[in-house]
């Protein structure tokens, strides 16, 4: 996966795009092959090392946001640092929060936020630990198109401004169109690859594969 780039993984249902992401993120183990994150082979790591890896190198953004309902937005955002036993760097947290545009919603609970705002919290939470790679699993899957677009902008911004490496799994061609590189999967194999494609090209490529 290109460092400092946004890679999108696309494919029809059951093509293996989610499995690929799970394996890349160390959530699942491959039957064969190897995965390296930040120069470290992760397929052989035990639970403790994987936990450490997730703390230091991996960030997640989920389709259903997965925020903890009893914590405020701010507490959700700083949670990875709290868990790792680190003191949040106030300046950095503030920057991340203002990047995602949540400065005035910090005290709210997830239930008091809209879907788009919840996903912004999730993105801030993923970015706050400065991960080597950020995995986004259908980040727009549960949002309307306008909000989805804003979320994609945020991800794009993170890549452009801070060279954040992002791997995004999606089946939304518009989402994929913001990627630097798009991988198409079918039955577990990479069948095509596009660079900087527009959503029309993506749709065409998808039709090509499913046809």
């Amino acid at each position: 996966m290109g460092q400092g780039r946004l890679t999108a993984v696309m494919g029809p249902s059951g093509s293996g795009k989610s499995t690929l992401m799970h394996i890349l993120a160390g959530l699942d183990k491959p039957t064969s092959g190897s995965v390296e994150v930040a120069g470290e082979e992760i397929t052989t790591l035990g639970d403790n090392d994987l936990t450490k890896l997730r703390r230091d190198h991996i960030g997640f953004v989920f389709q259903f946001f997965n925020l903890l309902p009893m914590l405020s937005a701010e507490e959700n955002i700083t949670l990875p640092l709290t868990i790792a036993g680190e003191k949040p760097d106030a300046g950095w947290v503030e920057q991340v929060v203002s990047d995602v545009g949540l400065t005035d919603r910090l005290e709210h609970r997830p239930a008091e936020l809209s879907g788009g705002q919840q996903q912004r919290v999730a993105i801030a939470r993923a970015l706050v630990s400065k991960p080597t790679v950020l995995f986004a699993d259908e980040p727009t899957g549960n949002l309307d198109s306008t909000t989805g677009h804003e979320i994609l902008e945020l991800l794009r911004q993170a890549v452009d401004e801070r060279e954040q490496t992002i791997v995004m799994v999606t089946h939304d061609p518009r989402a994929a169109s913001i990627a630097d590189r798009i991988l198409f999967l079918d039955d577990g194999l990479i069948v095509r690859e596009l660079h900087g494609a527009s959503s029309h090209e993506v749709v065409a490529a998808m039709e090509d594969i499913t046809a």
Partner: protein
Amino acid sequence: MTRFALRGILGRKLRTALTAIAIVLGVAMVCGTYVLTDSITAAFDAIFASTYRNTDAVVTGKRAFSGSQNGSSASPSFDESLLPKVTALPDVAAALGGVQGDAHLIGKNGKSIVFGGAPNIGFSVDPTQPRFNSLTLVKGSWPGPGQLVVDESTAGKKDLQVGQTIGVQSRGPVQKFDISGIAKYGAVSSIGGATLAGFDLRTAQQLFGKTGQLDQIRIAAKSGVSPQQLVAEVAKILPRDTQVKTGTAQATSDANDTTDFLSFLQKILLAFGLIALFVGAFVIANSLSITIAQRTREFATLRTIGASRGQVMVSVIVEAFAVGILASLVGLFFGLGLAKGLFKLFDAAGLTLPNNGLTTETRTVVVSLALGIGITVLASVYPALRATMVPPIAAVREGATLPSEPLDAIRGIWPAVIATAVGVVGLAASISLKPATTLVTIVLAVVFLVITLFGCALFPSRTVGALVSFGLGFASLLYGLFGSGLGATRVLLFIGVGVLLVFFGFARVATPLIPGLSSFMSPVARWSVFGLNVLVWPFWTFPYWCLRYGIWGPGRASKRVIAFVPFVLLGPVLLVVGIASTPSSIGLAVVGGLYTAMVLVVLVMAVRKRLTSWAPEWPADFPSVVPDRSTTRVGRENARRNPQRTASTAAALMIGLALVTLVATLASGIIKPFKDAVDQLFVADYAITAQNNFDPIPPSAARAAAKVPGVVAIASVRGGDGEILRNGQTTLIQVTGAEPQTSRVIDMKWQDGSPTTIDHLGSNGAVISKAYAKDHDLVVGSPIVVLTPSGSVLALKVKGIMAPPTGGSPFGTVTISSSAFDAHYQQPLNLFTFVKMRGGVTDANTKALDDALKGFPNAKAQTRQQFKDNQIAGFTTVLNIIYVLLALSVVVSFFGIVNTLVLTVYERTRELGMLRAIGMTRRQVRRMIRHESVMTALIGAALGIVLGLVLGGVLAFRVKEIVFAVPWIQLVVFTIAAIVVGIIAAILPARRAARLDPLQAIAYE
């Protein structure tokens, strides 16, 4: 993580509260027990401190041995000539002689004033020596000849006034006294149900039949003389049959009996508290397991953002810890209230305990908190381990999947066998070996018990593990019961460990049985709910519906008003039902209460509707009672779909019901042989006993009855303590004395000797029971030596061996002739008197006996049936107290059911929405939940009853005084109670489920 855990509690208030209640109740019981027993101890201490006020030394008669302190076995009296000798001693500043004895005050109804089993104490007071006086006058003056003072509380309760005349009975017939004053005992606010009567010395000596004698001399030392010096000085001049102790030592030895009783009471009550906590642990573990299953995604998310397994585990345990602290604190608080409640409970049961204000010791707080918090945390360990098994990938999976069991990784035959073996060996060793202290033993036993359970859980097959636990538990139980040479502590430990293992095993073994049991219980639940519905319908369902229809129903107001007509009309009808029911006061109270409740509920609704946006939910359909098959079917499937959860929920109730059933089984196993024994032995027409059925009474009552014309035969049984000497060892036994006509009123079976042997035992003949003869290889002709409390040594010869029925007999271990008894026991007392009359039981005979006993208000004549009922009455009272205490654990399991249902409803939100969307009405949703609840309760009841019967059977087999008798009526009552528990438990969860908006429920994520 701590913050996360604590926030979690706030986010799940209802669930947390329901879980916490289990601990609150258990802790309250433990704390209440300590507060109660500490308070009683403090009250007794205050009483004994008052008794020996300013007393440096006490001279009393010397008992040959210590035994039970009642009646004829109290310390013997001594000659009053000792008093001037003591007073003359150089270091004695003052000495006061006193006597005491039973003094029954006779109430206005001619009966003796008795509060439960509390004593009726009479004693001498000497106002000229105020330093020794334990009484303080409240009103009136100190008594002179023919006068007495009574205690304030009795005077208050029975409205006794200064100047009034009152009858008093002690040894002889009733004598009349004037109340000269009302007094208080020291600074003690309540001395329990005891009645006190103070007399001047001469009057008291005459009344108690102790003319010229004293029971004690209280001595004050001159200043500068220590009590020990004084005791040494007094000891020199004492005759052989007396002794002297310091005031403190005497108070301690007086307090011995009460201390023993209190420590017994404390242990029993603590046991009930621990049972409630144990059930609470089940409930907590179950609730936490369900909560954790529902929070899978939360934990997985935590893992994906870097939380380690340890952190997840800590978060769950911290949460439990916080709940434990909160619940224990609340429980502690409730415990104080409960202590008051227990005082009331015992009071209502006729056992008024002395009270001098509630005492809270540091120990109470420490133990209660430690137990409450410890058990909560312990119960959370397994669920917490389970939470660590949630893989991070669960964060991206659809829906919540159950994490695998933490033990799966190491599950296997060998680990299981090894862990179980280590646990069992450790358990056996820790109980059998001589420990440093009992506490160490208990701690070790708990540790190894946990290891054993862990081992059992490791078996690859759940059922096998459960059966192993069950089997081991039973083995331990049996060993505890039948093993020889175990002390009481070990027996109890083995039994306790056994019962715990059996419960665990049974709870786990029940899981595979759930589907089958559910199919069986579903129709039972359906029809029993139907039955209860039919019963409740006219009293609640219908009038309530009418009321609501009239106020909120559909249609024009003018039409709805018609609904009020049946509501109003039903009132008088139910009133008649209330009056007709027996007792009518209860019937009326129920009907009145229901109507008031209905109006209140509707009023509250009206207020809510006006003040908030809330609107009453209105199922307009007429309330029917017909069971709804389709909903009960879904309910049944719901109960079956997660057998483990249903089994754990039912297990909590199972424990409570098993114990209740066990108690009921044992009770009927005791009552039945007792009744049989009375039926066999009681060939007389009447029995004369004390008003409270068990106090011994003076023989003068029997002598009065003997004079009644028409008496064919009359015989009394005297009773007292004795010590039997065998091979240089002494054993405390009960000695009874039999009168010459005994064989005509008691039909005893004889193993050796003729039935009339007992009538003519002479001065040295004795009769013993078959069991005692067998245990000590005694035959007719064998010599036995018995020591009486006053120091007489009786050399006796066995003349007969009786074979009493299982249910017991009026006779003690050794029975001698009444003349021999009277010769060797000071102030002998009768346990029972049996009378045979010409014509048998007739109104005339009853009246003649009652008339003869008029002078003995503490005595009453009863027929055989009355005798049986009265003898059982005291036992039934104790039984009822036990039921009330066990009800606590049933209440805990009730909240367990509520909690599981609430969690289940939460978990099935989508599903419920779907059911509503496809046309299930709210009422159907409620019925579905209720059906599941009733089924769970019934399964728990069925398992508990079976287990209780099995345990009862084993115990009955072990204890020869108890036979195995199934208490059918009680079992039916328990089952109905379980169904009601199920119905009530479902109310809140069913309402929550019915309130779900189908659209939101489906959209719920």
